[in-house]
């Protein structure tokens, strides 16, 4: 199967010309198109797609980085536990440098906490087999990562000393709530290719119904992203907003049923704190009663600090995540805040907007 064709320079050029000459020229205003997936930002920066778009088409990164929306409250709580009890914490590499109120996982590690990086929940489970102490997997990620967590708990033989601290979040409800509260606004939404593989597209119908926003799913090659932008502009021009599938080779409208069943079996949706954005109902995956033996929050009597700080003074991650400013508008960007020494979470993960811009050379 030739998937490289979705990066064919000729196709990419034609798509960008069609966007420019045919669709955008018919719109006499600035159109703000938001994506909500860190990997889309990565593709947009890597392929230089913003340079291929006309002046009046702005593509903005929304709340699409799970690491960036993980609250300091949870980071502080698990670090406190790691420093006070004989436990091992495992988590994804992207989490390690994310600052909590005082410490990051990496700094806690240098103070003696047992914190290990893993690539997946499967690695975390394997590591636990050879460990004598309780191992707690700090499980971060949207539905794309929550589904593997759920499947692993259902299908695998899991050692008794393995636990989960879930900070998994459900994207569609979070973005809908932010839109409803007026915290974010947009003229079109690029749906997250891989998260939507799990959730399916139906959950996005109410974005169209309630806000009249064109919603198009997209893959991660250059032509995929441009196709979604083109389809959104076509919908705007024809006045017929709808949910459209621009990533047919992977996404089914219904989503991945097996993954959805696993999620429903293992988790329920509770209110969750999104870093810098506050509490949002029914967006946090918490373990169901039948799986509570894995729940670190319950089994270790996690105490939440009340005085946690989401963003350090001067860090504008909260506004970056909402797409209200670009990283260049933060005066710490690339000066005091770099991937080596990040001040906010958006400069840490490969899905963080500040990190993507920094790596892409947007440092002037």
């Amino acid at each position, binding site marked *: 199967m030739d998937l490289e064709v*979705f990066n064919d320079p000729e196709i990419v050029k034609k798509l960008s010309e069609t966007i420019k000459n045919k669709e955008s020229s018919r719109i006499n205003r600035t159109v703000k198109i938001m994506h909500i997936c*860190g990997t889309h930002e990565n593709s947009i920066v890597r392929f230089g797609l913003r340079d291929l778009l006309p002046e009046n088409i702005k593509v903005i990164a929304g709340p699409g980085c799970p690491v960036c929306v993980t609250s300091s409250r949870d980071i502080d709580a698990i670090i406190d536990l790691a420093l006070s009890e004989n436990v091992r914490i495992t988590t994804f590499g992207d989490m390690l440098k994310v600052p909590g109120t005082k410490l990051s996982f990496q700094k806690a590690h240098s103070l003696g906490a047992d914190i290990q990086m893993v690539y997946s929940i499967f690695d975390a489970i394997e590591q636990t087999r050879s460990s004598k102490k309780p191992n707690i997997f700090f499980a971060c990620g949207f539905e794309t990562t929550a589904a593997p967590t759920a499947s692993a708990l259902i299908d695998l033989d899991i050692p008794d000393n393995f636990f989960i601290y879930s900070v998994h979040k459900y994207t569609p409800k979070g973005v809908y709530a932010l839109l409803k509260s007026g915290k974010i606004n947009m003229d079109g939404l690029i749906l997250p290719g891989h998260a939507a593989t799990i959730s399916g597209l139906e959950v996005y119908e109410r974005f169209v119904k309630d806000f009249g926003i064109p919603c198009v799913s997209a893959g991660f090659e250059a032509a995929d992203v441009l196709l979604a932008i083109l389809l959104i502009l076509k919908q705007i021009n024809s006045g017929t907003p709808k949910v459209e599938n621009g990533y047919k080779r992977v996404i089914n409208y219904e989503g991945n049923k097996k993954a959805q069943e696993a999620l429903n079996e293992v988790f329920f949706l509770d209110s969750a704190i999104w870093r810098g954005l506050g509490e949002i109902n029914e967006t946090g995956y918490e373990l169901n009663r039948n799986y509570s033996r894995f729940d670190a929050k319950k089994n270790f009597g996690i105490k939440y600090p009340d005085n946690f700080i989401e963003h350090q003074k001067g860090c504008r991650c909260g506004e970056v995540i909402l797409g209200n400013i670009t990283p260049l508008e933060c005066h710490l960007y690339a000066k005091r805040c770099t991937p080596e020494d990040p001040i906010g979470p958006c400069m840490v993960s490969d899905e963080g907007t500040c990190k993507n811009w920094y790596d892409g050379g947007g440092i002037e």
Partner: protein
Amino acid sequence: MCLGIAMKVVEIYDSGIDGIVEGGGVKRHCFFHMIDDLKVGDYVIVHAGCAIEKIEEEEANENLKLIEQCLLGEENGS
């Protein structure tokens, strides 16, 4: 962390729920429990050690057709 990558299934273990995938010259262990009817040679999107969906050849062609249609509309001036 959330980067999903297209990879080819090169081996499925007897359990049926895991095996080996390959992409860009790299081989990796992968879980398949979210996908039915997987065969060696199929392409999947791998995310955090787990295949989250199969890439359908037929749908990939349709995907390409959708792009072509959008571009053809341009050339015909429609």
